[in-house]
């Protein structure tokens, strides 16, 4: 009797335990859950989901969240070792945080290796610790691992109204000269500054900073945002360009920039590939279709033009129970034919052959420029898990300077001092 009672309790527990602990064998998952950013960046991914189901029999469940909410969700999911997500989309500045925390799987052993048709910088940006540039002190001893693969090959470029000035600006001096010539106060902005506080203004500013010879850190993590070149770059943004910019650069985000450009109220600006469709290519929403040229970031005083990467990568959380199936999806997504379908559905590919495909180039006129920008190569934001905090500091000061709360010099010295304190506390 006692034995029967014990069995009655133990058998269901054993069944439950075996069900909970069972790990699907490699590559046999029927569903993959992907955490993705809401917006144009995951449009191509969503378009591929039915195709993957049809070809491989695996359902892709895409869970979308806005940019900041996605980051918060991923941070908390990784802390809790949550196995909800099999794949995650991440902006490349998040990679150092996730790499430092050891939240992602190494994709190498799962069969993902570098492909020469994809620019080397794309593989480098997904590698942790970073293969070039300064490495955080605590990360130097770690072996290099591929933790993410680019699925949105975003690189910041430059757009200008080619119908008004057929010759593209070769340098930031030309940019300023053209801006002064085209600026009509209150109706046409000679240059559109994306100056909303924190991330937007920093994304707009870094290509200018690098091209003018400034930087945030040197090779040894010393803060150089207040050296002469960096100060000159800040002054160039908040004084020279602001004088020929739209009425309120301090509140302008990417969507506002797109509207200004689409309405014919702006002459030139930096631009992300994801914005181009709405801002300048779709004749149903823009007045300037066919009137805009694209070039890589113009040269600055450093003698080169340095674009900025804003790649979105796919990574596999260590807690995922479908590691191999997730890796198989990444491999499938990188295939040339998949990338072509991806590009035809508003995805931004990273394969050079796809970016240079003549047929695709007819509808995506910026693809060849993007291929060129990826080969340049562009810079990535400093590879430190403190980047979000650094960006917040710089973005707050730049926004304050753009809205008249600080001078360019105060913004440079104030931000540099705060970043030094932050980095020192973080062990740099």
């Amino acid at each position, binding site marked *: 009797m006692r034995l029967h009672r014990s069995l009655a309790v133990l058998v269901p527990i054993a069944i439950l335990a075996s069900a909970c602990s069972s790990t699907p064998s490699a590559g046999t998952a029927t569903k993959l859950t992907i955490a993705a950013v809401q917006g144009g960046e995951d449009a191509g991914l969503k378009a591929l989901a039915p195709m993957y189901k049809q070809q491989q029999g695996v359902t892709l469940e895409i869970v979308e969240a806005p940019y900041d909410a996605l980051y918060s969700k991923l941070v908390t999911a990784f802390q809790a070792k949550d196995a909800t997500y099999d794949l995650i989309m991440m902006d490349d500045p998040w990679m150092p945080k996730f790499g430092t925390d050891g939240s992602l799987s190494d994709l190498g052993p799962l069969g993902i290796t570098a492909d020469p048709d994809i620019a080397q910088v794309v593989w480098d940006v997904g590698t942790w610790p970073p293969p070039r540039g300064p490495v955080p002190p605590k990360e130097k001893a770690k072996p290099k691992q591929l933790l993410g693969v680019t699925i949105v090959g975003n690189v910041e470029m430059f757009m200008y109204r080619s119908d008004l000035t057929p010759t593209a600006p070769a340098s930031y001096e030309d940019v300023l000269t053209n801006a002064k010539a085209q600026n009509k106060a209150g109706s046409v902005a000679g240059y559109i500054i994306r100056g909303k506080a924190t991330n937007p203004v920093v994304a707009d500013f870094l290509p200018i900073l690098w091209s003018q010879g400034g930087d945030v850190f040197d090779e040894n993590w010393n803060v150089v945002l207040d050296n002469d070149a960096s100060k000159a770059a800040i002054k160039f943004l908040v004084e020279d360009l602001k004088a020929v910019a739209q009425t309120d650069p301090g509140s302008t*985000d990417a969507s506002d920039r797109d509207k200004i450009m689409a309405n014919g109220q702006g002459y030139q600006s930096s631009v992300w590939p994801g914005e181009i469709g709405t801002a300048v290519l779709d004749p149903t929403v823009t007045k300037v279709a066919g009137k805009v040229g694209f070039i890589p970031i113009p040269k600055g005083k450093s003698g080169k033009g340095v674009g900025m990467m804003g790649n979105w990568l796919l990574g596999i959380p260590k807690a995922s129970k479908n590691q191999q199936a997730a890796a198989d999806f990444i491999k499938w997504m990188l295939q040339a034919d998949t990338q072509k379908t991806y590009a035809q559905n508003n995805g931004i590919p990273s394969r050079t052959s796809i970016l240079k495909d003549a047929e695709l180039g007819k509808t995506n006129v910026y693809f060849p420029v993007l291929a060129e920008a990826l080969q340049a190569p562009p810079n990535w934001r400093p590879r430190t898990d403190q980047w979000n*905090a650094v960006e917040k500091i710089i973005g707050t000061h730049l926004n304050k300077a753009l*809205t008249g709360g600080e001078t360019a010099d105060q913004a440079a010295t104030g931000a540099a001092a705060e970043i030094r304190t932050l980095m020192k506390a973080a062990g740099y």
Partner: protein
Amino acid sequence: MSVAPARPIRIGGRVRAAWKAQSRQERLVYQLLLPVFGTVFALATIPFVLAVIRAVTSDSRGFVGLENFAQALGNPLLYESIKQTAIYAAIALPIEILGGLGIALLVHRTVRSNVVRAAIYIAAMIPIVIPQIAVGVVFRLVYLPDYGILNVLLGQTGPSQPLWLSSPPLAMIATASVDVWQWTPFVYLVMFAGLQTVPSESVEAAQVDGATSWTQFRHIELPYLRPLLLLVLFFRIADVIRVFDHVYILTGGGPGTTTEFLSLYIYRIGFQFSDLPQASALAVIVMVAMTVFYTVVSRFLPADRG
């Protein structure tokens, strides 16, 4: 001297005995309340306990006592964000409460048609049920320069137009105005419901005695509304401390840190500075402060109107 052997404490037995001592009706009450308490425990108590644990630990050093609290309280930016939150509350709350009360009195005294009252009720519900992110996006289109609706209506689209989102005082007014638009109807609904409980005999008697509108409000209606006003004040203050979405969309905390309110500051510490222990300490401090505040407010809430 003999020592009696210690009897084992049988907690389960005592609980069982206490449970049996309850009447059947009392036991039913506990059984019915159990799902509610369970839900509150799972959704509120467990996260709070986890936040407290996070607030007294460090990723690398384990238990650190009150170090995270000291660090949180030692940051001057915290007091800056509290100041900005107080300014925001000082603009939004009086307008919401007095505005909501005024509209409720107006509708209560002048609108007799049930259909019109229902229409006003539905209209008042609309701002409350719209997600704050959507509200932020819509108001951004209102306040933006050049093509923003407000400046176009004001005929101010030239170089000297008001910059609602990037001039410090105007940005504060712009963000607070969204709060006023969204939550004044909530105050109206609560106050209007409160006014329905005022006995019509008392009002009629006062009117026969020649009471003015103000006297009627001050001596008859206000006593019925007082506990509701305190409750509304509590809820609105709690909401103002949590305000995030529409501010993030409208200004991102700018210009500079002018609209970086307490919730944005905690977000900044937790997710931009990746300091979750300090952010947890801040959350615990806010929770304790709100509990103290609620306790004080509760003292002014009469148990009944008698």
